[in-house]
């Protein structure tokens, strides 16, 4: 059960984000979720996209420094408190989390969370045991 995140090193400069989203749009790649972490020097753009391989190829050809990061995708219900219960699961297991970001499905009324943790397998097992539904690359197109 793996979810591939496209991680891109970007200059902290106006227009870079537009260039990247344009390049993906031209190749019919949809961005399902996006998160940016930046410092004064650089930014790290993290994307969940509909066609990972094509997106990686497109951006590499455009000259971007791209890396694949394996993350955990969790389906969270629409009800309040579901996110914190998922985080509780990780906390109880002592799994360290680097970052998270969320997105909504277009087709279903569900929220999803992308988690970057130290130990994917451990997190996945703990979440599934607690009754959470995980998503993989194959699921991304259907959302």
């Amino acid at each position, binding site marked *: 059960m793996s979810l591939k*995140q496209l*991680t891109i*090193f*970007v*200059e902290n400069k106006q227009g870079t984000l537009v260039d990247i989203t344009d390049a993906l749009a031209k190749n019919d790649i949809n961005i399902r979720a996006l998160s940016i*972490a*930046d*410092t004064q*020097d*650089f930014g*790290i753009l*993290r994307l969940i996209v509909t066609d990972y391989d094509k997106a990686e190829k497109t951006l590499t050809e455009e*000259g*971007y*420094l791209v*890396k694949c*990061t394996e993350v955990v995708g969790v389906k969270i219900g629409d009800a309040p408190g579901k996110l914190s219960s998922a985080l509780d699961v990780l906390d109880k297991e002592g799994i360290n989390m*680097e*970052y998270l970001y969320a997105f909504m499905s277009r087709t279903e009324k569900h929220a999803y969370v992308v988690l*970057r943790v130290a130990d994917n397998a451990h997190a996945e097992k703990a979440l599934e045991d607690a009754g959470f539904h995980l998503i993989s690359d194959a699921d991304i197109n259907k959302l």
Partner: protein
Amino acid sequence: MEKRYFQKEIETMSVEEIKKLQSEKLVKQVKHVYENVEYYRSLMDEKGVKPEDIKGIEDLHKLPFLSKADLRDAYPYGLLAKPLDECVRIQSTSGTTGRRVIAFYTQKDIDLWEDCCARAIVAAGGTNKDVCQVAYGYGLFTGGPGLNGGSHRVGCLTLPMSSGNTERQIQFMMDLSATIICCTPSYAAYIGETLKEQGYTPDQIPLKAGIFGAEAWTEEMRQNIQETLGIKAYDIYGLTETSGPGVAFECEEQTGMHINEDHFLAEIIDPDTGEVLPEGTKGELVFTALDKEAFPLLRYRTRDICVLTRKPCSCGRTHIKMSKPMGRSDDMMIIRGVNVFPSQIETVLLQEGYQPNYQIIVDRKNNTDTFDVNVEMNPDQFTDTVGALTALEKSLAGAMKTMLGINPAVHLVPPKSIARSEGKAVRVIDKRKLV
């Protein structure tokens, strides 16, 4: 393996013979300059030196120095020693500040310059069976024209590519099986990186040797280029003021560059006092052109800091060797009172596993120097968390502090985002306005 030279008799003549030849040429040259160059005649008169005081190389120290400032003062014709109708060419420095330096050549000057470049090509293993790709800039810059002429003299099939258009460079290199490439070391590294990205391994690259000069490069950078391109990388030295590349060149020993002593008389001086230093001492390199007709500079201060040695060389050449310049006073920056050479930054980057692609930006804010170094991210070390990347910046800054004694702010930037010189690298941007 049989040793090969372009001009064996000259390149392997005994030291006594070289010195005798230099003495004869110096006496004539001083006379030629005194008679034809008013600017230098006044300098000699001021010092109270007459041409007849110079009886051989032992009297060289009596002559006045010339520096870049003199070249600017005398611009454009003040140091010309031949009527313009005997001159056939000019070349010029790529200087970014102040007035350009223009050097003049008669046909004989060009012939001798090209001979020097031919010696360098033969020392790098070149023969008339080689295909020599000249990827130095052509035009006012001496790199392209000098190596082009040398390559013709050796009889190589010459590819006059000039710099830039890397795709076309690679296409010609592959299609015509270029065996020797001449360019700046930073451009060689760039071509190497591009070939690697395109999936070429060193054994698929037809090159066997490279002749690289016109900018400072380190031993680490040499190893790097040799490995990516699968070649032996030779250093070449020269200045527009003295002719161009080929004043000195490396042989297969790769332990310094033989100075073409039949044409150029070298000295090492103390840059502060002007006193001549003994062989083996580090100091400023000074050249006297012994054969140049149109633009014969005597005791020209290069600003390059290096060491000369006459230890016998396994290649059989007897001409004195100069070390790679350890720094150039033009390149040296004083930041917060500390001397900083760009080559030191480069050494740290290579040690830490980065490509030597960087830019130093110095500025002054609130009466304090700011010192920033932009470094291209190493793809192997790229990760998805800010913490890991800022840790890389800190660790690089730490390594630079150890080397330099002062702390730079290191900024990681995307690969290939620093303007890549296909001619000469702009490694330093000094924005300080020193009043």
